[in-house]
């Protein structure tokens, strides 16, 4: 791709980004049109993805907060301040006292960019906290940074001490590292896709017999469109011409191709298979049956923090207790010694600054994230790990999620001549029942005989008279008037002229590991939502044994509403789905997981993307996420121990800069190594590494 200029000299510059799977091209648009460029790329085998939704721009926006630059500044200052603090710690002889003031001053100057550039985010966040009357961890952090800086400035300028410049720089540096670690981005996966990246960019319309392409956004009602084999119908439309055989699996969850007759409404999102069809648009793209789902409030709501994290819960109390101790020590010393009172007050705020606490979550989560990542479970961000641990209800979609494309296997048990097969085919072709369609597909294309007498009992079977033969096809109850409940698969029995020939058996292929997943029933409430008909109910019962756990024929809106109703009973819902029809449910749920067999393919907007091959590991993933929460709790205890040790010095007002300078990095290093090792061990235990 980077040699494009050799193929066409109008291309000036070409750079490939492997991870993002992007190509940057600069070309002379006088000599080469955009269309020609796309054709050129197509010709050499790299067809570009043309999408209405600008995912790339969105992705690039994410990295605009200059975190790396802030870390660079903080790291630079941290290193230098350490250097200039050493003489103080090692002891300066009395005749070199002029240096002491000089070093202090340099430290103070170096601290300024750390506080006002690198640490700025904490002050802004703390200010927003105060405005919203909430307390998150950024508040005590900002307080700590401010107190450290003010005390350092006062001590240096009044020549009363060396200040805490190195603690300050170290604190900001480590905090920013924690922030950086938390921000893992997958360049090749997008979690924000919606119907626009699934739908085509343009569609062919017919006007007075002339065909021309127009952009999807300009498509209006009453226009006639042409949809060819494997193209997607972009808007609700009425079929005017052609034989429509439409694959709705992605939209409704219906796994069998649907045959539509002339004049019928076809919902947007279906994929035509077979010959070209002509349709008349009846609704604009954004108002279609499927796309209007995106007008639901679930899509406009802000996605972040649907659950309160452990950190948020703890830091509220932490801040209050911290302030109480600080003020208490101030009040205690104030009548005795004013300067000691302020020394104790500031020392408490410095030493109890929850640096280790702030780092425990990001480091644990990022370690967990990379373990999930190795097992092909891609989480949108680190916070999702914590949400995963707090799930108590799991809702599965059927088509594409627990079933795979290989779908149904049909077998005929018994003997049937070619002529009899033709009879069965001719009977089944009249029925729109999914099983009839599967039988037709299994038998292959045969001659269609005229049917004299045809009667279909919905959901039971077919009675037909063809060429003088009497056919009776259907369930055991329908054919023999008895029903064997022990049979765990769908069977269709065949009787021709009162002679029993055998039965068709439909074995459904579920994803490997469905057995393991269904064992989650002991710890979670499992539900199944399907857009499909309930003809697999009996097979699915083994996975979803509870009462009222399966719902069939659910529209995309029904799915969303069902999740909402579960949430109203205080359930924390994880939705596992794959298609556009699950988009609403994925968004509404507390944690949406999209299952896909190829992470580069389309998957609806979600919090996590699970590769189909790792589906069986889902129970392990859930257990592992609970382990990480335990690790966070434990590291919180460790950091509290450090804080209490420091506090015992601080309340007496005798905190030396050296103690602070040792305590702060020591607690940080302990937390970082503990969380990383513990997460690794937990991952090993769950056999994820």
């Amino acid at each position: 791709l980077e040699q494009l200029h050799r193929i066409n000299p109008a291309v000036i510059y070409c750079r490939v980004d492997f991870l993002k799977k992007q190509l940057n091209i600069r070309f002379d648009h006088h000599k080469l049109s955009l269309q020609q460029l796309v054709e050129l790329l197509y010709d050499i085998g790299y067809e570009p993805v043309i999408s209405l939704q600008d995912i790339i721009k969105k992705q690039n926006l994410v990295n605009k907060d200059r975190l790396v630059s802030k870390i660079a500044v903080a790291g630079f200052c941290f290193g230098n301040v350490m250097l200039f603090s050493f003489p103080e710690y090692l002891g300066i002889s009395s005749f070199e006292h002029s240096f002491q003031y000089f070093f202090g001053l340099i430290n103070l100057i170096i601290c300024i960019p750390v506080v006002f550039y690198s640490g700025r985010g904490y002050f802004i966040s703390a200010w927003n906290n105060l405005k919203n009357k909430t307390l998150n961890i950024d508040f005590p952090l900002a307080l700590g940074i401010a107190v450290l800086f003010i005390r350092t400035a006062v001590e240096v300028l009044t020549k009363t001490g060396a200040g805490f410049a190195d603690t300050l720089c170290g604190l900001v540096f480590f905090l920013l590292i924690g922030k950086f670690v938390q921000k893992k981005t997958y360049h090749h996966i997008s979690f924000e896709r919606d119907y626009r990246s699934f739908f085509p960019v343009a569609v062919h319309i017919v006007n007075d017999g002339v065909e021309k392409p127009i952009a999807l956004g300009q498509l209006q009602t009453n226009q006639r469109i042409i949809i060819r084999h494997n193209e997607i119908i972009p808007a609700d439309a009425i079929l005017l011409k052609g034989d429509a055989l439409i694959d709705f699996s992605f939209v409704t969850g219906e796994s069998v191709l649907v045959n539509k007759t002339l004049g019928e409404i076809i919902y947007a999102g279906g994929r035509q298979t077979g010959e070209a069809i002509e349709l008349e648009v009846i609704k604009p793209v954004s108002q279609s049956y499927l796309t209007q789902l995106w007008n639901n409030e679930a899509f406009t709501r802000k996605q972040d923090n649907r659950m309160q994290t452990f950190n948020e819960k703890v830091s509220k109390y932490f801040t209050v207790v911290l302030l109480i101790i600080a003020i208490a020590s101030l009040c205690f010393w104030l009548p005795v010694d004013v300067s000691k009172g302020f020394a104790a007050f500031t020392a408490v705020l410095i030493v109890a600054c929850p640096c280790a606490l702030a780092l425990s979550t990001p480091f644990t989560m990022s370690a967990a994230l990379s373990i999930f990542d190795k097992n092909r479970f891609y989480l949108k961000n680190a916070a999702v790990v914590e949400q995963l641990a707090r799930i108590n209800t799991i809702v599965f979609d059927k088509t594409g999620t627990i079933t795979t494309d290989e779908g149904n296997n049909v077998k005929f048990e018994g003997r049937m001549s070619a002529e009899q097969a033709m009879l069965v085919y001719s009977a089944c072709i009249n029925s729109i029942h999914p099983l009839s369609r599967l039988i037709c597909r299994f038998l292959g294309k045969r001659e269609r005989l005229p049917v004299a007498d045809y009667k279909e009992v919905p959901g039971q079977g077919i009675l037909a008279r063809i060429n003088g033969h009497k056919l009776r096809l259907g369930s055991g109850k329908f054919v023999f008037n008895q029903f064997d409940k022990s049979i765990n698969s769908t069977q269709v029995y065949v009787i021709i002229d009162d002679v029993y020939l055998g039965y068709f058996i439909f074995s459904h292929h579920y994803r490997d590991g469905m057995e393991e997943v269904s064992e989650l029933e002991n710890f979670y409430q499992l539900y199944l939502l399907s857009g499909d008909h309930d003809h697999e109910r009996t097979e699915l019962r083994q996975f979803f044994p509870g009462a009222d756990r399966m719902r069939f024929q659910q529209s995309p809106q029904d799915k969303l509403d069902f999740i909402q109703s579960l949430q109203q009973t205080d359930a924390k819902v994880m939705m596992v789905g794959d298609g556009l029809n699950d988009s609403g449910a994925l968004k509404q749920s507390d944690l949406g997981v999209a299952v896909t067999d190829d992470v580069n393919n389309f998957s609806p907007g979600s919090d996590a993307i699970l590769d189909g091959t790792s589906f069986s590991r889902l129970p392990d993933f859930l257990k592992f996420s609970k382990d990480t929460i335990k690790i966070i709790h434990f590291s919180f205890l460790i950091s509290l121990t450090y804080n209490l040790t420091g506090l015992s010095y601080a309340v007496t007002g005798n905190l030396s800069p050296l103690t602070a300078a040792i305590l702060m990095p020591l607690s940080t290093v302990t937390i970082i190594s503990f969380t990383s090792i513990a997460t690794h061990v937990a991952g090993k235990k769950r056999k994820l590494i």
Partner: protein
Amino acid sequence: MSIIYFLIGCSLFLATCFLGAFFWAQKTGQNDDLHTPSMRILLDDNDELPDEK
């Protein structure tokens, strides 16, 4: 010992230069893609590459 004032000035100046260099690299996007250059070395370049800018 007053030479220390000068030496510290030098060291700070040098360090700031490196920090500035890092900022420049960051701003011009040299750290945006750390993966592809390692693969680009495997490509044949039998004629001269076009100018980057």
